[in-house]
């Protein structure tokens, strides 16, 4: 791809590990949409919530390095698909903008590290790019196949819509719903679309984390959803990875595929199952096979 691609891609650590399918589907979707995208060279970890818990200054510096690197490339849009990365980068911008002391420290650090001063890099989330830059109507037009009659719940998680509400409305986000509907999915009502999945809690205070995910899954089922669509690698992981454990604990027959938005959009645009990382699911494998491979002949071509 050309050197100064429109979108500079900031993967964050998860998209290189547990969230690899998010990266695969994102790049596939962007290719199908003919949106130029390029990975930010030598990016570092955003710091996530952990760094902020230890040092505000260091956390901001860590995030600032990425923003400075982005500026070096000449692209204006820094695309962070992970909710935590998105917010951490955005928050560091806010801290720099509102607190001169922090701004000063950032300036000093960048100078020492030989990096350029911060400029107006726009931190973007995938959902926002799909909704604003591409648009629901365009996605509808580009859709080549539809998941006829499949009911899904859209789950936004926390840090994309809160606290700034720039990706979508913090109370009642609808953009993912609109996109999913446009590409042919039946979207069910879902009260918990912005309730927290617990983030890293599944790894630290395991029972609490799993309980939160149980509630999310159960409510989705109650609303008749057959799958949940996410926009964050951690949400996807939490909802996907512990279903067996939840089944064992509660005895409830929960086995639900958890997708990334880019997997669903990418498939609707004609992407290949493996290219979209759909084979990497842990839960709901049967349904995934049914929808995306076995019943291939049943696909409706538009």
């Amino acid at each position, binding site marked *: 791809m050309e050197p100064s691609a429109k979108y500079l891609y900031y993967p964050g*650590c*998860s998209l*290189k*590990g*547990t969230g*690899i399918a998010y990266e695969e589907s994102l790049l596939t979707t962007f290719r199908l949409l003919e949106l130029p995208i390029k990975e930010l060279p*030598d*990016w*570092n*970890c955003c*710091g*996530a*919530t*952990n*760094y*902020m*818990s*230890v*040092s*505000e*200054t*260091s*956390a901001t*510096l*860590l995030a600032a*390095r990425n923003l400075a690197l982005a500026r070096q490339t000449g692209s204006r849009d820094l695309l962070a698909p992970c909710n935590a990365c998105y917010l951490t980068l955005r928050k560091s911008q806010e*801290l720099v903008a*509102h607190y001169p002391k*922090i701004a000063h420290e950032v300036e000093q*650090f960048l100078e*020492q*590290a*030989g*990096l350029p001063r911060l400029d107006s890099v726009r931190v973007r989330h995938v959902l926002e790019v799909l909704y604003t830059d591409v648009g629901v109507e365009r996605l509808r037009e580009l859709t080549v196949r539809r998941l006829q009659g499949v009911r899904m719940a859209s789950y936004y998680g*926390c*840090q994309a819509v*809160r*606290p700034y*509400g720039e990706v979508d409305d913090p109370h009642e986000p609808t953009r993912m719903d609109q996109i999913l509907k446009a590409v042919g999915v039946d979207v069910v009502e879902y009260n918990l679309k*912005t*309730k*927290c999945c*617990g*983030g*890293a*809690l599944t*790894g*630290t*205070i*395991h029972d*609490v984390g799993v309980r*939160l995910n149980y509630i999310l899954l159960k409510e989705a089922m109650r609303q008749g959803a057959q799958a949940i669509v996410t926009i964050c690698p951690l949400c996807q992981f939490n909802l996907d*990875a*512990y279903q*067996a*454990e939840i089944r064992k604990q509660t005895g409830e027959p929960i086995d639900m595929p958890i997708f990334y938005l880019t997997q669903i959009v990418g498939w609707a645009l004609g992407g290949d199952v493996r290219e979209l990382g759909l*084979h*990497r*699911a*842990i839960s709901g494998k049967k349904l995934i096979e049914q929808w995306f491979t076995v019943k291939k002949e049943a696909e409706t071509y538009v």
Partner: protein
Amino acid sequence: MERQIRYQREADLEWAHRFTQHPGCERLLSCIQCGTCSGTCPLSIYMDITPRQVIAMVREGFRDDVLKSKTIWLCASCYACSVECPQKINITDVMYRLKREAIQNNVFPKRFPIPVLAQEFCEMVRRRGRNSEFWMVFRMALRSNPAILLSMMRTGWDLWRTGRLSMRMERIQRVNELQYIPAATKEVD
């Protein structure tokens, strides 16, 4: 019996005053103790003191009671409280601030996994520029509660067979640039 009374000399009002000067904590004094934060919080049901009580305690200078609470470590930074607060208090930022003070003062619950995770994480990121999920979880478990590793076996296997578990130690190229970031635990003010 343990006496529950608080003498006024135990209240660190100077600390409380300084607290409201920190980024994000400016509106703390506007709190009307309505409890929307606690009601909204998905994790308040596990907390020893509710977020509302945290604010009341901070405001009244009961520093030690707040710093040793599990509440601040249960906060998953979902920002629901900050968005709902009728007084626009950035409760999430208040929690972050308290976490930092707790770590600096070493008063968090020992072998409690969350502060350990945070420190491990920072250490790894500062040294290598990236976080390798597998190694981070592994080291955290070793330091806090190795028994957890057993329960994680299944998840690990699931991830492994779907190609989502990378054991590579990630590292950025220009790691030298990170040396100018002060060691996280040294933050003072």
